[in-house]
């Protein structure tokens, strides 16, 4: 041991005295120092960089940031009123495998939720799965009660429920959501993907105030005239924006049940019916646009006309020669057929096609119906179409076409979304001159014709009414005495801005209508009440100085 130690020391002494060995160690230390130094320096630089140079938060990766967004975006009206939003609720579910005394649990649950059925509860509590819903969307107070019960296996999950603060007011346009917040109809269905992915609210063209007025007045009219239902729309002629769209019966999107199935039907876009006399406007517009007739052209309406088995007569006919102007104002069926004789079926079909009558109109809801077009466009078809029979379209078709006619002949496309820019300009259907003549004609209908009860001095309202018997297939018309009474009203004449459509389904005569149940007696006053209330809201300036058009009467030459 001693020997080895001395040996070791002497060896060490030798090494210590060896300069060469020391030099080698020094060199190695310096190399190591150098490498570490560089590494350290690099770390220092990076630290400085992180702390002082790039220390702003936006250079940090955003991965951790979970955006605060809910499953479904809000829907607002054109003024920002919330039409659809959601509330955070709780939903109770159960893990049946953890439940020990199913009957006891069921009994205590029924105490809190009396509407649940005992049998169903037991079935769910005893099921073989790991999961079963007990009740969806309960308010915080009931959640607390569930928590207080402290039943193992019973859990509350945070949930969201779609709510519609205006309930029935906007039912058909917005549609509704299912229990899992999937859009099942209307805007909710059409924009399901967008509402789920984008957080910002979806703005519609609807105005909740206008919507309320339509709802109120239409509802009153339906009760008053004991109609089966009805619908109404207000559209901006220049942009195509729908300010209101109401269909009766309406439903409450907050609580949809099976009973609501019939009221889901949107009469504005899904109900196809023959519009009746309203189409006499299109008929005369074609004659004027093709320059085959002028406002004063004479048409013989003395005798009735036979189409196949049917005889066409005039309602309260004049039985004399009428000018085109009179034929429209007095709503002569015979006159309309005579007018359509001028241009024939090919031109008629072509114009109607360009007015969009042969296709499904565009609107941002899935519930839009296709028109019912006769298979063969015969001479008989041409005659009946001239006064609004033989072809069934939706009110949306008509509103689009009427707006097109009043909008200097440029096609109007209805929309439920608020437009940012102007409406895309389509191919002109009617000449500007025709549009102006039609305005005059429709104003005359209000002054002299069936639209008298729709007039409001100052707003220069243009109207055309139409009362059409419902068709019962091969049995023909008048078999059931049911009618659709519609009116289209647009205002003001000098610069048409809004068009209002009202249809009452099978209105009955009342004491004040002298036994009449035609549109001039029910839909017309309804449209007046609507316009009276919406016009000041929509900034329409009354004009009492506007010149009244004169009826061009037939004078015996």
């Amino acid at each position, binding site marked *: 041991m001693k020997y080895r130690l001395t040996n070791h020391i002497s060896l060490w002494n030798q090494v210590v005295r060896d300069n060469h060995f020391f030099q080698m160690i020094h060199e190695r230390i310096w190399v190591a120092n150098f490498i570490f130094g560089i590494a350290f320096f690099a770390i220092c630089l990076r630290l400085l960089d*992180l*702390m002082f140079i790039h220390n702003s938060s936006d250079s940090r990766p955003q991965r951790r940031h979970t955006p605060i967004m809910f499953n479904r975006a809000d829907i607002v009206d054109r003024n920002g009123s919330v039409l659809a*939003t959601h509330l*955070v609720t709780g939903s109770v579910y159960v893990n049946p495998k953890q439940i020990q005394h199913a009957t006891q649990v069921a009994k205590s649950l029924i105490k809190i939720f009396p509407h649940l059925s005992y049998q169903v509860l037991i079935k769910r509590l005893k099921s073989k799965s790991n999961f079963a819903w007990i009740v969806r969307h309960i308010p915080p107070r009931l959640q607390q009660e569930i928590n207080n019960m402290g039943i193992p296996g019973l859990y509350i999950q945070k949930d969201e429920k779609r709510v519609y*603060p*205006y309930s029935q*007011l906007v039912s058909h346009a917005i549609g509704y959501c299912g229990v899992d917040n999937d859009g099942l109809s209307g805007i909710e269905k059409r924009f399901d993907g967008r509402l789920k992915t984008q957080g910002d609210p979806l703005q519609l063209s609807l105005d909740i105030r206008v919507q309320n007025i339509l709802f109120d007045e239409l509802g009153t009219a339906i009760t008053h005239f004991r109609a089966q239902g009805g619908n109404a729309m207000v559209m901006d002629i220049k942009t195509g924006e729908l300010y209101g769209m109401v269909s009766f019966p309406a439903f409450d999107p907050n609580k949809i049940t099976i009973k609501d199935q019939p009221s889901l039907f949107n009469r504005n876009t899904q109900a196809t019916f023959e519009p009746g006399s309203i189409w006499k406007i299109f008929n005369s517009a074609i004659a004027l646009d093709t320059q085959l007739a002028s406002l004063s052209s004479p048409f013989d309406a003395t005798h009735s006309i036979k189409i196949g088995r049917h005889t066409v007569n005039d309602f309260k006919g004049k039985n004399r020669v009428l000018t085109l102007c009179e034929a429209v104002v007095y709503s002569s069926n015979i006159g309309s057929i005579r007018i359509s004789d001028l241009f024939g079926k090919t031109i008629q079909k072509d114009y109607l096609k360009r007015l969009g009558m042969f296709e499904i109109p565009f609107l941002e809801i899935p519930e839009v119906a296709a028109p019912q077009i006769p298979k063969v466009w015969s001479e008989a078809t041409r005659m009946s179409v001239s006064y609004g029979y033989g072809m069934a379209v939706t009110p949306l078709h008509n509103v689009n076409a009427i707006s097109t006619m009043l909008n200097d002949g440029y096609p109007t496309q209805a929309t439920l979304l608020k437009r940012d820019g102007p409406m895309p300009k389509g191919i002109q259907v009617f000449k500007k001159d025709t549009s102006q003549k039609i305005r005059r004609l429709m104003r005359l209908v209000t002054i002299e014709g069936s639209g008298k009860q729709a007039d409001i001095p*100052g707003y220069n309202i243009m109207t055309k009414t139409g009362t059409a018997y419902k068709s019962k297939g091969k049995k023909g018309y008048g078999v059931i005495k049911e009618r659709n009474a519609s009116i289209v009203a647009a205002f003001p004449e000098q610069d048409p801005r809004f068009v209002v459509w009202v249809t009452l389904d099978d209105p009955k005569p009342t004491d004040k209508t002298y036994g009449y149940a035609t549109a001039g007696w029910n839909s017309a006053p309804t449209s007046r009440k609507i316009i009276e209330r919406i016009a000041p809201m929509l900034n329409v300036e009354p004009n009492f100085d506007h010149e009244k058009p004169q009826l061009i009467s037939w004078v015996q030459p």
Partner: protein
Amino acid sequence: MIILIAIIMSIGVSLFSLKQSVIELESNYKSIQNEIMKNEESLHVLKAEWSYLNDPRRIQQLSEKYLPKLHGIKPEQIQSLAHAKTFRNRGLDKPVESSLDKKLKNKNMKTIKPKKSLTLDDLLGDAP
């Protein structure tokens, strides 16, 4: 050597404090996030309630109940400024004596002088 140690020490300290502040910020961030969530939820409830209370049907009912004499604006009640000029030319711009003025006169309360009302001339300038 001392400098080196000092640098190492300071870097160590700064690294530690950096980590601490990051942890603190992170927890702050989480709590703020939670708070925003809660606020947003209650905001939703408030929004829904606001819409619900502003239901035009409800307002209409309230107005019919409490403001029975208030009705919609009739077209005759709306006048443009262009029409106002013709009013002035017809001499209709004289200040109208209000019912309050009459009451004041009847009570001989001459101490209170009614302010000169703003006429259409003040608004429109000179007549064309």
